[in-house]
């Protein structure tokens, strides 16, 4: 299996999980690059003990957590609110067409990481057992976190709609 095969099949899922950790712009590009380099370097060691989807999403999830961890060390707590323009050609049109999705991602990013990672993977359609394997918790714990995440997400959306 080549990187091209993996990206063709799981690229969009990978992009969405990464977007759950960072807002659009340079920071997301950096994390995307980090994740893809990690996938590229880990690919020769992939032994098919899990599905290819679990393999790439586990790397994305771990890199995303490490990114959030590094980011928490930065002195500016308002970094999330700073919007950085995407310099790529056609990026504006793309963002405009998926504005609803970007808004959804913004709500997702307000959740604690433990809930965010589980919700993102559940939205991707992964069963609890596969999420448990990726995140490193039990399937029961996944169910509990998912229920809390849905509730928190709904509250966040309702708050914005009310405002």
């Amino acid at each position: 299996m080549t990187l091209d095969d993996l990206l063709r099949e799981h690229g969009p899922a990978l992009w969405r999980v990464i977007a759950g950790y960072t807002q659009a712009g340079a920071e997301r590009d950096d994390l995307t690059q980090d994740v893809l380099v990690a996938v590229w370097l880990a690919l020769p060691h992939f032994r098919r003990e899990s599905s290819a989807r679990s393999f790439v999403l586990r790397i994305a999830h771990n890199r995303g957590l490490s990114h959030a961890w590094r980011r928490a060390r930065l002195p500016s707590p308002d970094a999330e609110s700073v919007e950085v323009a995407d310099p790529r050609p056609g990026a504006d049109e793309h963002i405009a067409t998926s504005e609803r999705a970007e808004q959804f991602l913004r709500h997702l990013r307000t959740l604690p990481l433990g809930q965010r990672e589980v919700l993102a993977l559940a939205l991707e359609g992964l069963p609890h057992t596969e999420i448990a394997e990726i995140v490193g918790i039990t399937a029961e714990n996944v169910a509990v976190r998912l229920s809390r995440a849905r509730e928190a997400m709904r509250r966040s959306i309702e708050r914005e709609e009310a405002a």
Partner: protein
Amino acid sequence: MTDVEWKSWQSTWAGATGPLPDVRARAQREVRLHRLASVVFFLLVAIAVAASSVPFTDRSSAVRSIGWIFIAFIAAMSIGYFFIRRGIDLTRNGNPRDALGFLERRLRFERATAHLVRWAYAGLCVAFVFVFPHVVAGHSAPRLEMAISFPLMFVLFVVTFSAPWWVARRNRRHEEEIGHWRQWMDEQHL
């Protein structure tokens, strides 16, 4: 939550997509740097091994033992390098939980090693105090040899016996950092 609401969320989620960069050039550069680091390391080991063969040409057993000590040192360094590299590879794609676990294991290992060093060297020093006077008894200036060796052994004893104390002092900052990250992970429900 209703199925309809969940399906609506999934559909919005699936609508989020974007371009992925081509990272082959960067990945290949990283692989090249890793290879270069390995080549440089093995080159240095080869030079060191070649240099350590020089004492073996000497007739004196003391000089030859220096060669053996040198080889033992190179072997220890090489084995250590492989273990460290293996550890890095294992945690390369690990998450903060893995990293935290790794740090805690390392600190525990350092604490245990410090205690091992304390008592192993204490035993060595005690043995030295009893054995050394007998070893130098037949030499031309045994008092001078003892006057030089005992203070050095005393310094070694002080440094090694206090190892748990200075290791703990050095690790206090790391432990505070681990506590900080554990708190962050609790806040993030991780």
